[in-house]
């Protein structure tokens, strides 16, 4: 289990998200000493319920290396989902810092956060969270639609559709392109969600109990897909799970107990 103390890096206000920067970092990935992809220091988060303040995270420190597979385990209510949401910038911490590629991201303006979520992070949820009105292909294309303006999207559409078809082929859903989520099985929906999370070529994949809602067979299939894609796309995978068997396959396991990382 690797746990690195993160020293605050020199605050860079501008966040460089250019593909050149990323590919350079990916190249560096091949070195034995992998650079840090994400790191978290002194993270606090509490939820308010009326007057009652419920602390969830009480000073979490952790670091994730590029291209690694990290599993976050813990009991229900230990704050693992909250931690993943904070990592995915869906929520802001009360205190502490989150770094991505040596840059602090928890205090970025919302516009840059949106761009970050859209292009750098792929999110996978326990309940798939597909849009029920759209077909499988359209669901996969949504991040690209969000990313581009109307005209730009139409111009790039061919390329995107090709990429989406490729991804759906990778997850084994070539025959389901025009089906609505309601016509898919749970495993198929989750694989669609995985394809969606990869359409923008992210570097980090954040998965919140991706197999939690699936039977063993489908769960194994989804995990297979994830592992295969991680190798193929050279992704950093951070997965929340309460399944110890799954966690054991990870490079690192972070055990959250009562809002802190247990050794």
């Amino acid at each position, binding site marked *: 289990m690797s746990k690195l103390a993160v020293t605050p890096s020199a605050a860079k206000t501008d966040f460089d998200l250019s593909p050149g920067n990323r590919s350079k970092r990916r190249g560096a990935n091949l070195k034995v000493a992998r650079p840090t992809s994400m790191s978290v220091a002194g993270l606090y988060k509490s939820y308010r319920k009326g007057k009652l303040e419920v602390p969830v995270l009480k000073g979490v420190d952790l670091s994730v290396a590029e291209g690694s597979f990290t599993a976050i385990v813990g009991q229900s209510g230990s704050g693992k989902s909250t931690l993943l949401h904070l990592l995915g910038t869906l*929520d802001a911490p009360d205190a502490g810092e989150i770094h991505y590629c040596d840059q602090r991201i928890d205090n970025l303006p919302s516009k840059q956060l949106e*761009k970050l979520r859209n*292009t750098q992070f792929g999110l996978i949820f326990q309940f798939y*969270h597909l849009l029920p009105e*759209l077909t499988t292909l*359209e669901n996969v294309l949504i991040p690209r639609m969000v990313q581009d*303006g109307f005209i730009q999207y139409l111009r790039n559409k061919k390329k995107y559709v090709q990429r989406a078809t490729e991804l759906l082929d990778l997850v084994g859903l070539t025959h389901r392109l025009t089906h609505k989520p309601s016509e898919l099985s749970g495993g198929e929906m989750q694989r669609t969600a995985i394809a969606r999370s990869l359409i923008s070529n992210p570097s980090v994949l954040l998965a919140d109990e991706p197999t939690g809602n699936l039977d063993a067979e489908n769960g194994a299939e989804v995990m297979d897909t994830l592992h295969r894609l991680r190798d193929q796309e050279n992704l950093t995978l951070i997965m929340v799970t309460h399944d110890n068997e799954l966690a054991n396959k990870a490079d690192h396991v972070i055990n959250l107990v009562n809002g802190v990382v247990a050794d």
Partner: protein
Amino acid sequence: MYKLLLSWRYLKTRFIALASIVSVTLGVATLIVVNSVMAGFVDQMQSRLHGILSDVEVAAPLLGEITYPKEHVAVIRELLGDDVEELTCVVRNPALLSFEFHGRQWTQQVMLMGIDDETFGKVTDFEPYLTNELKRERFSFELEEKGYESKYQPSGWEYRRRVAENKKQLADLMQQHQNAYDVAAASYVDATESNGRVAKVDGPDGERKVQLRPLPAKVPKHSEAAQEGIESVHQATTIPNSLAAKSSEKAQKVSPFDPHAKLRPQVNPEDMFDARKDQYTGIILGQAISQRKTTDADGKIVDLYMVRPGDDVQIMFPSVGSRAQPVSDNCTVVDFYSSNMHEYDSTFAFMPLSALQDMRGMIDPLTGDGTVSTIQIKLKEGANLDAARDKLIARFPPSQYPYDIHTWQDTQRPLLSAVTMELTILNILLFLIIAVAGFGILATFFMIVVEKTRDIGILKALGAPSRGVMSIFLGYGVSLGMVGTGAGIVLGLIFIRYINNIADLVAFVTGQEVFDPMIYYFSEIPTIVSPLMVLLVAVGAIGIAVLASVLPALRAARLHPVEALRYE
């Protein structure tokens, strides 16, 4: 892109939202129909109200006079300059109109207008409302041979000749009866005298007594000749020449039962007025003056015209001057005026200006110029009526001239403002219907936003900005508003297109005439579709739909992604 896609998919999959905009559709359709019909009404009403009212009028008090009208006209022309299109002088006075119907004399009040047949039609919309098509083309006060509408038939010269012929025959018949009676009476006198039936007897005390002699066995009550004459009248309308000659001779000579016989003027029959060839001064009556509504055997309402073109009527009114005298004369009805404005049609009668001036004694015997009671002015298209009126009032101040100077709108101000207010209130009320529809949309949208909370969370998690999420729902609202408004416009226009068929259908189903032509005076419901009105209604309706979707859209935009994702 995702905004459009999702708006479109929501529109396609949520029919309950479409149901919520049915009220927008109905509101828009109603607004368009009501506005178009009201515009049609107002337009027809205005043109009818304007009808025989000139743009601006300089009027003397009722029964009063404007002296030196020529000078007045010159002053007005100079004052208003290029704005004046045409001027005309009119004599206007209340009068009594009496006519014969079924042997009885009917009298009623009219507003008699003496009009100049050259200029009056140019100043007012008089001629289009005449019922005779020939008169509409070429106006005159002469009775026409034909061209009268079938509902007035029989009318015109043919009718007049027939009536005159009948009257003449009747008069001849009466005359023959009279003659025969005269002959009989005369011969009776002869007979009694020759018989010496009455004897004067001097009584013994010197008193004269009249004593009747005993009747002879055969009393010749009528002479044979007289008897024959009466019978011949009964047998035929023609009297044997000899007898006729004898009887007329006798009648002129002695007729003890006709004390005026000797005083009768001897008129050459050639010079006498013959209704078969001549007419009196032409008069045009408002159609409703002599019109009565009655039901026929089937219970249908029919118009009954007590006077027809070709009939003679009598008019009576006071002359001008300090000691007004009643003046009366015969006139021949030459046409009807039918503006379908009951107020005008039941009031006005028109006759030639010079004839009326002459009858009322308005013509100065020295100069030959007549006075008038109003000067009517038509201004050029687009000229400011109120400004012209104010100029005239300044030139003819009330302190010096007792004139009433007004525009036609002043005259009909109460009616016009009532209609305008009615239209405004209707529009407000109907727009409230669309506003109510707006609240329906608001409620439906809130439901949809709640239903779509998780989708909103997903989109935000995938990096969609709040603005984008908001525009999905705004776009949804706009499209719903446009669909509803578009459908409403189409529905409204179709309704207007077939409004008369629909009215007929409603009349057929309910058995109740929607717009009774007897009351409303139009056979078809008038409509005017103004593109600007349609545009305003459409913009208003879409605006309300957008406003109603702003709140739900804001709510959607403010949703926190984590909470939205957790939402079950």
